[in-house]
């Protein structure tokens, strides 16, 4: 049975991505007790799945390393992974929360030695790599996974495969009897940082994602470029493993579109500008990128990043929302449309098409287990009526990492205001 120590001066943070980790760390480093709840078996969220950041082209895992070190060093944070909040009752300063824990089937004895992974032969989709590859059903989600513990996928529990894994473990770390459990805990304030999900590209039917193998999404492209990814960092076509040297980026794939997401997702322009660097990095002058856009939203000081990319002769810009994609006999996606600057028709074949899919709040569709107010796009709005529950990061707006962390830091203070009040009242 998992035990959680929490009082009405505890801050509950829901979501263990960079926003949730930030909110939790800032609060804990200010002396507050924090419970951090994450649905995945690992922390870090979507930033951990990025290869590089704009505009510095540095690596998200570098910041993750620091945040994990802060976390390991801080006894005030309790982390629950494979955990989902199922109910919240009570009011500001006095919430009762129930959390559902899905079994990992691996306990704290795990040393991440990897013997179970070797023993198991069953494979599952590699979720960390957006299912672009397969991994063993006994797996460490990724090299920086925290907790640094393996996971036995539920699909093999109750099969001989799981028994193989158990037999291979010298440390009694594998517990196939683990059951789903529900823990209850108190909290004075709650930070809701459940982040975002990439818009489902299959809904953008003219682009034939899911039908044409060489039409992928921007988040998938990050995994292709990453040495930890399914291709070991090589930019290859899913259809035939050929080098993708002529890459198209389609902006507003789902965003700024009343048939899909009404809002502008903000990060995608910079994201694609950044990804043209991956093509250049991989193939030098042989790598060509084309960005199809409506407006390039390289906001504030990012403008100079845009200017640099524009100056690169290997990157071209076409002001056009691509109308549709067809596929030629070599499975090259062919983009059809009109360059609106002076009406020029095009039908351009590319090796690979990257859809800059937009940001959909994860809370959308999910009923947030409390009266949290969301706008019609599903983003959490600041709501006086719920003065003890605060949105943070991309659950509140379409934000880039930098702004998400600001938002999370602000949310931490709002939560602290509540628990400090409780503390003063009880003092």
């Amino acid at each position, binding site marked *: 049975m998992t035990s959680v120590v929490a009082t009405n001066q505890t801050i509950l943070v829901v979501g263990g991505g960079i926003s949730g980790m930030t909110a939790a760390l800032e609060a804990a480093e200010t002396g507050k007790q924090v419970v951090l709840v994450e649905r995945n078996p690992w922390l870090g969220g979507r930033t951990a799945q990025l290869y590089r950041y704009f505009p510095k082209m540095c690596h998200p895992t570098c910041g993750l390393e620091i945040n994990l070190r802060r976390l390991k060093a801080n006894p005030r944070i309790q982390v629950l992974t494979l955990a989902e909040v199922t109910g919240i009752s009570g009011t500001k300063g006095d919430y009762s929360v129930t959390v559902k824990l899905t079994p990992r089937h691996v306990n704290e004895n795990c040393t991440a030695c990897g013997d179970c992974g070797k023993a198991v032969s069953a494979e599952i989709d590699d979720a960390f790599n957006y299912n672009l590859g397969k991994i063993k059903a006994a797996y460490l989600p990724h090299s920086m996974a925290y907790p640094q513990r393996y996971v036995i996928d539920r699909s093999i529990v109750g099969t001989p495969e799981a028994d193989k894994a158990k037999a291979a473990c010298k440390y009694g770390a594998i517990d196939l009897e683990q059951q789903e459990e529900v823990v209850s805990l108190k909290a004075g304030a709650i930070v809701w940082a459940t982040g975002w999900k990439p818009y489902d590209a299959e809904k953008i*039917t*003219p682009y*034939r994602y899911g*039908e044409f193998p060489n039409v992928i999404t921007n988040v998938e492209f990050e995994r292709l470029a990453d040495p930890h990814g399914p291709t070991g960092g090589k930019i290859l076509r899913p259809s035939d493993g050929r080098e993708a040297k002529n890459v198209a980026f389609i902006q507003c794939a789902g965003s700024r579109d009343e048939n899909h997401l009404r809002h502008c997702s903000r990060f995608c322009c910079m994201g694609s500008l950044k990804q043209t660097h991956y093509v250049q990095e991989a193939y030098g002058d042989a790598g060509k990128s084309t960005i199809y856009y409506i407006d390039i939203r390289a906001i504030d000081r990012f403008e100079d990043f845009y200017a640099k990319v524009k100056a690169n002769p290997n990157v071209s810009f076409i002001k056009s929302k691509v109308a*549709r994609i*067809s*596929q030629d006999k070599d499975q090259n996606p062919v983009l059809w449309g009109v360059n609106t600057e002076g009406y020029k028709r095009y039908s351009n074949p590319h090796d690979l098409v990257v859809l800059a899919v937009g940001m959909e709040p994860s809370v959308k569709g999910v009923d947030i287990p409390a009266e949290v107010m969301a706008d019609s796009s599903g983003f959490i709005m600041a709501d006086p009526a719920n003065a003890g529950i605060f949105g943070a990061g991309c659950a509140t707006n379409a934000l880039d990492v930098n702004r998400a962390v600001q938002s999370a830091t602000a949310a931490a203070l709002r939560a602290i205001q509540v628990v400090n009040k409780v503390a003063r009242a009880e003092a």
Partner: protein
Amino acid sequence: MARKEYAFYPGCSSQKGASASNYLTSVESMCKTLDIKITEIPDWNCCGASISYAEAGELPRHVMNARNFALAESNLPGQDIVATCAACWLGARESKERLEHNSGLMADTQEALKEAGLNIKAIPEIKHMVEVLIEDLGYDELKKPVKKPLAGMKFAGYVGCQTNRPFGIHGESFENPVYLDKLIETVGGEAVPYDQKVTCCGGALAFSEPDKAQAQIKDIIESAYDNGAEMLVTPCPLCQANTEVYQGQINKKYGTKFNMPVLYYSQLMVLAYGGSAKEAALPGNVIRARKLEEFAGK
């Protein structure tokens, strides 16, 4: 008492001796097999089609459709209207939608209808025959009567525009609708994938801009051939006519050797249900579907 009854709106082309008379014939025998009763709306009139926009203006177009609504409503109460022509269906649905969402337009329409001694209470549902088959009956029901599966025959399901956009068949994607393919498979044929499935045939512009329309039609037929299709299958009289009757001219212009029969889904179904070439109105095809004629003969 048939299991389903509809107020039937055949449309101008699907009349005896008209350009889609073979569509009508095959639909009638198909419905007989499926025990669907279709009763023609008494004295129905033309929908105006899309092309009339310039001369007709807005209101007169809706009024033309409104008259059919009123006639169906009063003569065949409680029955949904079913159209076989894509343009009729679209025109009627557009008018229904516009009238129901624009009270001013509705008022004017009623006033105009008064001149013909008619008025509208509630506009009936308007369905395309394909919707009746798929949604009201379902593929399983359509499969049951199949006596002679069209085994080993390769068809390109040509959906075109107006049964597909803007309303479309429920649950289908605009870019790659699969209902025709499913119908083909339901009657035992093979639906070949090809990339001109929803390309526009030029519509009415086949008359006014023949060169441009025929360029489109060429792409469609070519792609069907390239992907191994023997015949084209459509749900729309104008698509059928355009893709069929201009093949000769296209051959002249482009030096192609097109000779691909273009059928209605209803013709395939009649044959699969064991109907004769005549019941399937095969003689109505300008480019004779020899393979099917033999099949029907067996």
